[in-house]
């Protein structure tokens, strides 16, 4: 009951409609074991005959999941071909191929944004639930809040398996240039706009996918919102770069000693641990969230897959406790964790571990959120471009 009240509160406090998750919790399905084993061995045999599963992916996850994929290859004798490069290039290529009647991909490990804005409208994806047969995956009690989570409008195509946890705002500063008492004056998000910080802050540009993602998220957050985004981009005197290494050098060297919005801070954490004069700090967040961002969050299946059995085998295996555990143990510095509750956290950093039983706002799983995100994205790009006048 308390959970229900909390959720209603979150939904009201939040700009977007958080899903009534508890109400949506579904009963687990338990298929007959003998039927499954027969079906599974037939599937494995068919997948072996096909020999390959082709996965469209991009960015860091296309490399991160290699050790996990290797386990699949050894276990089932099916070769996995994971595309590489940026997700946008992969999607461009796949869409052009499909327009020309060439179907080369089976599975997409692609971000909700790419899948929702491009793969789905082009009719490239098929509903995901019919592919799922493994009892370990179908058992919804093993998943966060007892259900499967999808990131598309009809909640049946883009399956979310990994999320990042955001229960506070992270920022970084140079300890040689900014002393603790000054940092102590930063209590809320608008404090970054105090004139004394003007010319001392850096931010990720909108050419960095994380940069635009940060701003879209900020647009909807009660602590920030559209006005905050406008000030941040146009009036707060930040220096932007799409090159995270340049930003990092400026922060460490103290040229720009404050970075108010940060994503992918594993590198900065590593540098701070090695004694460089930078420090992570946090500001409170009204609503704790989990987010499904980047290519490492979601899995979907292509229509007209050239290797349908291998695709089905991979999709099922990848979501089992075994494979999801491997993502926690074989991928170093994973900045997200599985939505399965029965998977040990392994190498997942402490701040990314969901507290047992805790509930979070989950905007990416809201069927209406995608369209609103697109609107916000356009607005932010216009602002960004207006900087270039």
């Amino acid at each position, binding site marked *: 009951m308390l959970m229900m009240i909390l959720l209603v509160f979150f939904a009201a406090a939040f700009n977007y409609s958080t899903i009534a998750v508890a109400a949506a919790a579904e009963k687990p399905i338990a298929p007959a074991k003998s039927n499954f084993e027969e079906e599974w061995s037939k599937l494995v045999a068919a997948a072996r005959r096909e020999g390959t599963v082709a996965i469209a992916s*991009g*960015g*860091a996850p296309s*490399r991160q999941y290699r050790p996990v994929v290797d386990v699949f290859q050894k276990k089932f004798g099916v070769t996995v*071909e*994971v*595309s*590489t*490069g*940026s997700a*946008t*290039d992969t*999607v*461009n*290529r796949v*869409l*052009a*191929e499909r*327009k*020309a009647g*060439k179907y*080369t991909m089976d599975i997409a490990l692609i971000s909700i*944004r*790419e899948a929702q*804005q*491009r793969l789905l*409208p*082009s009719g490239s994806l098929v509903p995901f639930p019919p592919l799922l047969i493994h009892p370990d995956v179908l058992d919804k009690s093993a998943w966060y809040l007892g259900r499967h989570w999808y990131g598309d409008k009809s909640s049946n195509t883009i399956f979310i398996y990994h999320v990042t946890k955001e229960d506070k705002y992270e920022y970084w500063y140079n300890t040689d240039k900014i002393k603790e008492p000054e940092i102590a004056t930063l209590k809320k998000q608008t404090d970054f706009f105090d004139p004394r910080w003007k010319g001392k802050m850096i931010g990720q*540009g909108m*050419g*960095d*996918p994380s940069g*635009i993602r940060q701003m879209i998220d900020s647009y909807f957050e009660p602590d920030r919102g559209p006005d905050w985004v406008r000030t941040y981009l146009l009036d707060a005197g930040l*220096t*932007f*770069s*799409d*090159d*995270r*290494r*340049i930003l990092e*050098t*400026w922060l*460490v*060297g*103290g*040229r720009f000693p404050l970075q108010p919005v940060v994503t992918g801070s594993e*590198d900065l954490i590593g*540098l701070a641990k*090695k*004694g*460089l004069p930078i420090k992570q700090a946090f500001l409170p967040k009204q609503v704790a969230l989990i987010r499904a961002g*980047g290519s490492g969050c979601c899995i979907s299946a292509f229509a007209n897959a050239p290797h349908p059995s291998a695709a089905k085998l991979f999709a099922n295996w990848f979501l089992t406790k075994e494979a999801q555990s491997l993502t926690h143990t074989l991928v170093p510095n994973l900045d997200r964790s599985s939505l399965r509750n029965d998977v040990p956290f392994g190498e997942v950093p402490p701040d990314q571990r969901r507290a047992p039983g805790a509930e979070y706002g989950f905007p990416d799983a809201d069927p209406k959120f995608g369209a609103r995100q697109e609107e916000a*994205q356009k607005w932010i*790009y216009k602002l960004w*471009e*207006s*900087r*270039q*006048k």
Partner: protein
Amino acid sequence: MHLTAGHVVMAAVLLVLGYFLVWPVLLLLINSFNAAGDWFVEPRVWGLRHWQNAFLRPGLLKSLGNSLLIWSLTVTFSFPIGVAIAWLLARTRTPYSHSLEFMFWIAYMVPTLPTTIAWISLLDPDLGLINVGLTKLGLFAQGPFNIFSVPGIVWANLMGHGIAIKVMLLTPAFRNMDSALEEAARVGGAGNLRTLFRVTLPLMLPPMMLVLALQLLRIFQSFETEYLLGMPFGFYVYSTKIFALIRDPVPNYGEATVLASMTLLLIALIIPVQRWILERRRYTTVTGSFRPGLIDMGRWNYVAFGAIALLLMLLTVGPLCILVLGSFMTRIGYFMLGFTLEHWKLVLNDPVFIKALDTTLILGTTAAVISPLLFSIIAYILVRTHLPGRGALDLMVWCSGAVPGILAGLGLLWLFLGTPGLSFLFGTIWALIIVVILQGKTTGVNVMKGLFVQIGADMEEAARVSGAGWLRTYFRIWLPLLMPALMLIAVMNFVSAASATGSIILLASRDTMTLSLMALELSSIAISNREAASIISIFIIVLTVTGAIVVRALGGRIGVRARVSAAPDLAHVTESTVVESRR
């Protein structure tokens, strides 16, 4: 009209090149009238939306002005320096001139990104090693240099390929200067400088014009340095706009094509000017009585050597040090974090690496062998024949260079997917081979054109009189004469094939991954392993340098120059070559 074999060859060349060079550009231009927001997803709707929106982009005029500013400043410095160095290397007795020339090739082989990063490490206003050194010495209160500025961008461009490419392209042309002409000037009482300005430079006008025109073509395409150094101080150039449109979450290829098509306007200016210059007088410097004599400047030879060597240190040592040192550093730029072999292990143990190395070698070698031959034939047709359709061929060569690689890649993707006879090549290495062979055509063909203009018709006529057919004349006369330029183009095409990204990214699969695509992936925002990317760049440079050494060695054997010193009369060499070949 009487139909000859030449007409048939011309028709075939126009058809094949038109298909591979112009059709992808036309596909892009036609589709720029497809008003759909996402060409891959939304149904086709014809309209002018992209043309209207593209020109309404905020700050477009300013970015155009910025592009012109950077280009003109870069050319103002790089062109005279490039011409002067090419002259010193080719026309004077500067010691080790061939080695120095080769070092400019190496400077050209170093990718732009490490060069820019190297200069950031040195000239960052607060953290750059030079600035820190000067302030610590008490010479300045704060660092006097700022790489994040317009002069900083111009400097990074000059230290990148700005000077190296001009020296590379102009030196072979200057070597073709007949010393008899310069000697005549001197006999007439002119000094070295007067000879240079009154005789040498006017005769070198065609190659110089071509180099300038090729640079003009790059005005809306070069962006890496401007992007990295300009954004922090809010400085955007035209090419940054094109790049940003393509990198939008939903790539806006329509508006990007519209903006890129502005280069076609430049081409419309370049071609007539180039024709006018070439047709108003003769520029023949290499004839049967060619003598490649050199000017002795006395002790100034050594001064020239010192100055060029110093420049080469700046062009190559900084970036190469950053590359090599960076590959062993835990994190580039952080000496306090120590050194490691982890990045080398990561790259060498990557299952894709060997495959990528293999693919790169195949692409580079094929491009290095086939492209120079192909481009020299096209240039021959353009300069030495009177076949109809030469204007169209020239236009094709120029226009195909109008769109940046990243856009051309989309046109090529459509070409391979949309052509029934070619779609089977899609996803194979053959598609990449075709692309890399043709991608250096604008530079390659024009460099060869410049040389054909310099070489007189007497040797070809002598060969024909001696009974050689066209093929034999080409291989026994032209090829040895053109060898320095062919070597240059072979190396340039090896470099461009080995470092191609934009043009092949949509065509390459996991099986046809190249080293350059691997480096792109490793240095991407998401992975950001610049150290591992440096290692890939080192491999590309080592491959290219090895290839260049082999090419130079082979070229030296085949080229005519080795024999010129023994038999200074080229007509004699020509005749004996033909007679020898007939035996």
